[in-house]
């Protein structure tokens, strides 16, 4: 043993003058800025998607209703309630939160003092509460764990779809978006958190998370079955749907929403048509002997025809134009919805035994009373076939056209004399359709595009989808939002001079009525050889009005129930753009509901 081994331990004494290092009042010590303490939740920002509940491995989170939070589109109205007897403070719920509303404070001490609201001296229930809604002292604490930027448990950027470049597409009607490959689709489907918030917002209430799951798991047959449960036009909707679902998509709050529409298209594109009947179990449909007539072969009519025939009804579809499809064929341009895609959907519906009578206009070729006599029920969905006019002076000039008429002529293959200078009035999707169609035709004919679209709504508030506007501009069209038409200048009965527009300062008046006012000092003048009006469409219900006992409301709308069954004429159901919408998916939904309504009506006892 060394002497120093006895002496050295005494060096301990040097600490005798040191201050104690123990924290005297640990209750005053704050957690660090990233401390994972009690949760905070901005319940106004939270949408109740339930991802936190889903990822919690301790099952500590329940979704419950909360006073003052309504269930609306994009918000389930539910909020997370945490059981602190189970929480392990891992903060995965914070990381997965789709709205970034969840966080954690750096406060970790809390005990119930005195009696709680139940009159008990603290019970385990006190440690189970809806975070952010029960006035805890840490609710507004800024410090504490928050999800770091640039780190996500769910990928926040959407998979881009391959598409034709502006130069490739500007003179061509070839479909612009190329569709997802399998790898792209699975990657995109992987982003879904399966909350199901989109389902309420989809007018047809499609099983969106279920078919996205099928894409993810590469089970397209199951995906097709889920899609056809509520939507018999997936090729169409997969391309041109207004995709309201994507506007409420939970993960859209902190990144791109899931490209739900493209995934639906992927399913429809990748299941061969000849396998449909086998997959969907429609090879043999038992007929029930009843007959239903469908007027109009647009989305609503086709949807009703599909669901009715799967129920066993013999369905006859009457279509005034030479081909089935309605606006999907005669309105939407080919570069957005190619005819073979549309035909794939329609051919399958036809294969169910649906009879199509084309070139047959109800009201001229056959009357509604004939149909009432020959069929057990009738579903009318004739859409909005008439263009609305600006009613400006000279709006009836022969070089002033309706967009809807031009689009129909293009599909029919009739020649349109495309001039060098065109002005389109309107800022909706139809206006963009005709703008881009005419731009393509100008490019083909002259090699240059000279088409201008103008609308009342300012930049960013145009009714058209953003990508439509962006793509139209890429293709050379000039879009000048925020101006309203003032006068159409003409040279003579055959020749136009142009359109004068003025800056629109207000579209709706104080009472919310459409009543635009203009700043007439800020005007523009566009030279034009052709003006196209595209400011809206209206229905043509003359074939119904004359012979039937239908009640119409104050604004000319038909009185009917939620399934479209018309008051006074119970055998008649209506749907589609003429009653609701206008868009494809709403039409499909109304057709579906009407089909179920017809089925119920024809099977009910009180039917006369």
């Amino acid at each position, binding site marked *: 043993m060394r002497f120093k081994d006895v002496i050295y331990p005494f060096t301990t004494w040097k600490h005798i003058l040191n201050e104690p290092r123990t924290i005297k009042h640990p209750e005053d010590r704050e957690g660090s800025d990233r401390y994972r303490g009690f949760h905070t939740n901005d319940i106004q920002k939270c949408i*109740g*998607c*339930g991802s936190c*509940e889903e990822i919690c491995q301790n099952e500590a989170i*329940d*979704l*419950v*209703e909360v006073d003052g939070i309504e*269930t*609306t*589109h994009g918000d*389930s*109205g*539910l909020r997370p309630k945490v*059981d602190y*007897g189970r929480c392990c403070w891992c903060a995965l719920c914070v990381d997965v939160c789709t709205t970034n509303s969840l966080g954690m404070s750096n406060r970790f001490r809390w005990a119930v003092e005195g009696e709680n609201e139940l009159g008990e001296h603290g019970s*385990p*229930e006190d440690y*189970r509460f809806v975070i952010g809604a029960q006035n805890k002292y840490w609710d507004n604490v800024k410090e504490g764990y928050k999800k770091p930027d640039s780190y996500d448990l769910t990928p926040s950027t959407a998979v881009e779809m391959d598409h034709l470049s502006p130069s490739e597409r500007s003179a061509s009607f070839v479909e612009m978006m190329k569709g997802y490959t399998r790898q792209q689709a699975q990657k995109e489907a992987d982003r879904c958190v399966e*909350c*199901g*918030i989109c*389902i*309420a917002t989809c007018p047809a*209430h499609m099983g969106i*998370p279920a078919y996205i799951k099928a894409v993810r798991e590469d089970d397209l047959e199951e995906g097709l079955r889920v899609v056809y449960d509520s939507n018999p036009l997936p090729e169409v909707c997969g391309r041109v749907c207004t995709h309201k679902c994507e506007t409420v998509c939970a993960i859209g709050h902190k990144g791109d929403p899931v490209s739900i529409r493209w995934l639906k298209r992927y399913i429809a594109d990748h299941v061969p048509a000849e396998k449909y009947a086998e997959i969907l179990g429609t090879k043999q449909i038992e007929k029930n002997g009843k007959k239903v007539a469908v007027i109009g072969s647009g989305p609503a009519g086709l949807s009703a025809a599909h669901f009715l025939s799967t129920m066993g009804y013999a369905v006859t579809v009457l279509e005034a134009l030479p081909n089935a499809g309605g606006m999907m064929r005669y309105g939407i341009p080919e570069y957005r919805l190619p005819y073979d895609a549309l035909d794939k959907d329609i051919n399958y519906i036809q294969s169910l035994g649906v009879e199509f009578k084309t070139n047959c206009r109800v009201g001229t070729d056959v009357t509604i009373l004939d149909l009432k006599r020959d069929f057990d029920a009738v579903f009318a969905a004739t859409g909005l076939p008439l263009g609305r006019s600006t009613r400006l002076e000279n709006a009836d000039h022969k070089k002033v056209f309706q967009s809807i008429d031009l689009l129909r002529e293009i599909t029919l293959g009739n020649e349109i004399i495309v001039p060098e200078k065109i002005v389109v009035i309107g800022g909706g999707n139809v206006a963009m359709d005709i703008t881009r169609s005419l731009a393509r035709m100008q490019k083909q004919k002259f090699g240059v595009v000279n088409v201008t679209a103008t609308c009342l709504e300012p930049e960013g508030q145009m009714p058209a989808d953003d990508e439509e506007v962006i793509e139209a501009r890429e293709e050379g069209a000039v879009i000048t939002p925020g101006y309203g038409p003032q006068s159409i200048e003409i040279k003579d009965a055959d020749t136009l001079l142009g359109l004068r527009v003025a800056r629109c300062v207000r579209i709706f008046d104080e009472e919310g009525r459409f009543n635009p006012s203009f700043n007439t000092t800020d005007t523009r003048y566009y030279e034009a050889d052709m003006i196209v009006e595209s400011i809206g469409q209206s229905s043509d219900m003359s074939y119904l009005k004359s012979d039937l006992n239908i009640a119409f409301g104050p604004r000319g709308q038909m009185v009917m129930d*939620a*399934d479209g069954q018309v008051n006074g004429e119970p055998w008649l159901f209506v749907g589609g753009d003429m009653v609701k919408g206008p868009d494809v998916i709403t039409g499909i*939904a109304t057709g*579906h*509901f009407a089909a*179920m309504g017809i089925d*119920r009506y024809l099977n009910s006892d009180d039917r006369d």
Partner: protein
Amino acid sequence: METVLKNVRDRYNVLHETHTHGVFITVSPNDVIGLLAYLKNVEGFTHLVLLTAVDWIEENQFQLTWLVNNPVLKQEMGIRAFIERSVWPEESVMDSAHHLWPAAKTYQRELHEMFGIDFPDSPEVNEPLILEYWDQLPPYRRDFDTKKYSEETYFPREGRYTRDPKTHMEAKLYAREGKKQ
């Protein structure tokens, strides 16, 4: 590593090999102990890293994995053998490696307890290692359901309920639409 593998292939019937995430070779259960002894004594794989089992209930097999390490060459090799998965209370049987590594007996005791795989001759193999008075299905077998066990053994907290956003929104927003009465 290639030399070792070649030597092993020369001497033993190697049924399967994977090299993607480390070297793993499959041999017949009868060859395992001999192979382990060869690897330990001749090829320098003197360190038994672990011994464990994987329950492939679908194929009615237990996979046993011995992981051995050569501390000089810093190489690692997994030896796999598939044995028949017995129906409890019958036990599957495998040869013991405790004579090569005394440490193996603990692994074997655990496998016996947790998977119901017996290693005859292994010291104290019948002694429970972790569990006390356990007479049910060995718990690490796939068909032992932990959730069910805990639900039967413990009780849930009262008053808890949760709502599914999807069905809740349906009830609140569109219960009437297209619904058959």
